[in-house]
């Protein structure tokens, strides 16, 4: 996803006269408005990018309802809930970082950015734990997949539960990839913040990375109920 970093890099702009103003823009607000509009359009492409998998999820869940409900109950609910909470906290610290950079509080900005990275790291850590659990239980789709047993009836789930795990790994895997890119962007922001790149007049890059991070959080906000909670009522 090199384009995301380059995209944010492009709107970072540090050139002559007011240092951050690019030669072809009239003034800083115009440049900020253009960059924000571009970021929102990029987020539209991300919505449709995940949208393809949500379509597959909707179609296969209606076709193989029991398999999906049974397989979903095998996911670790506590880890999922904790992950959701962690991500919401990271969204909070990210929003505060954007506020701090806009208010010119350099130290607070850096602290909040570090907080966001740590929370992102915790999220990825929990994801890694979940993935290793799946590997151990042979719930990873592909040749080594073993049809798991239903939580309640201890009967083997329908074979199509493998489809649920295929979608689970594709969706959460792509989400995790976006998280990793987000963490990369945040570390780059911290480096710039240390060099006094941001001021109340110019904090566009922090704002844009904030938009991206909040978007990744919204994706998880939808992934969590659709993947973890769909079958709980059958228990």
């Amino acid at each position, binding site marked *: 996803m090199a384009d995301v970093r380059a995209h944010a890099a492009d709107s970072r702009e540090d050139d002559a006269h007011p240092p951050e103003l690019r030669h072809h823009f009239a003034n*800083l*607000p*115009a440049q*900020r*408005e253009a960059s*924000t*509009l571009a970021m*929102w*359009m990029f*987020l*539209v492409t991300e*919505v*449709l990018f995940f*949208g*393809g998998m*949500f*379509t597959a999820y*909707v*179609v296969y869940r*209606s*076709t193989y309802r029991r398999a999906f409900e049974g397989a979903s109950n095998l996911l670790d*609910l506590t880890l999922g*809930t904790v992950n*959701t*909470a962690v991500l*919401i*906290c990271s*969204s*909070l610290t*990210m*929003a*505060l970082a*954007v*506020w701090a950079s*806009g*208010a010119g509080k350099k130290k607070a900005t850096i602290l909040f950015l570090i907080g966001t990275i740590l929370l992102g790291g915790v999220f990825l850590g929990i994801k890694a734990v979940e993935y290793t659990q799946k590997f151990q239980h042979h719930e990873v789709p592909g040749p080594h997949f073993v049809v798991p047993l239903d939580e309640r009836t201890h009967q083997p789930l329908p074979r199509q539960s493998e489809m649920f795990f295929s979608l689970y790994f594709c969706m959460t895997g792509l989400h995790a990839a976006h998280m990793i890119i987000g963490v990369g962007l945040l570390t780059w922001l911290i480096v710039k913040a240390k060099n006094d790149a941001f001021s*109340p*007049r110019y*904090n566009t890059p922090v*704002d844009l990375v*904030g*938009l991206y991070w*909040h*978007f990744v*959080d*919204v994706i998880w*906000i*939808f992934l*969590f*109920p*659709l993947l973890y*909670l*769909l079958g*709980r*009522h059958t*228990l």
Partner: protein
Amino acid sequence: MSHGASTSGTPKAYFGVFAALMALTGLTVWASFLHLGVWNTPVALAIAVTKGLLVALIFMHLRHSPRLTFFVAISAILWLAFLILITTSDYVTRPWLPIYGS
């Protein structure tokens, strides 16, 4: 066109949204254990949509953004709806084929 600090909200607003999101997460987990029959999924989706709106409007300061950004966000939801609804309409209407015609 607002710029600088005024585009982002106040910390107080952020903590309010944070609390709401945490509460809604708890709510959706709790609600998933209830036997609401066919209503389980709509309830979960409604909660997720509320959380998404909270994040978008306040964390992503969509409220203060120019109208154009608002349209861009709406177009994402609309096209996602086109993709999902029209595709599922094919699957829903597949068994409607009459077996023995007139």
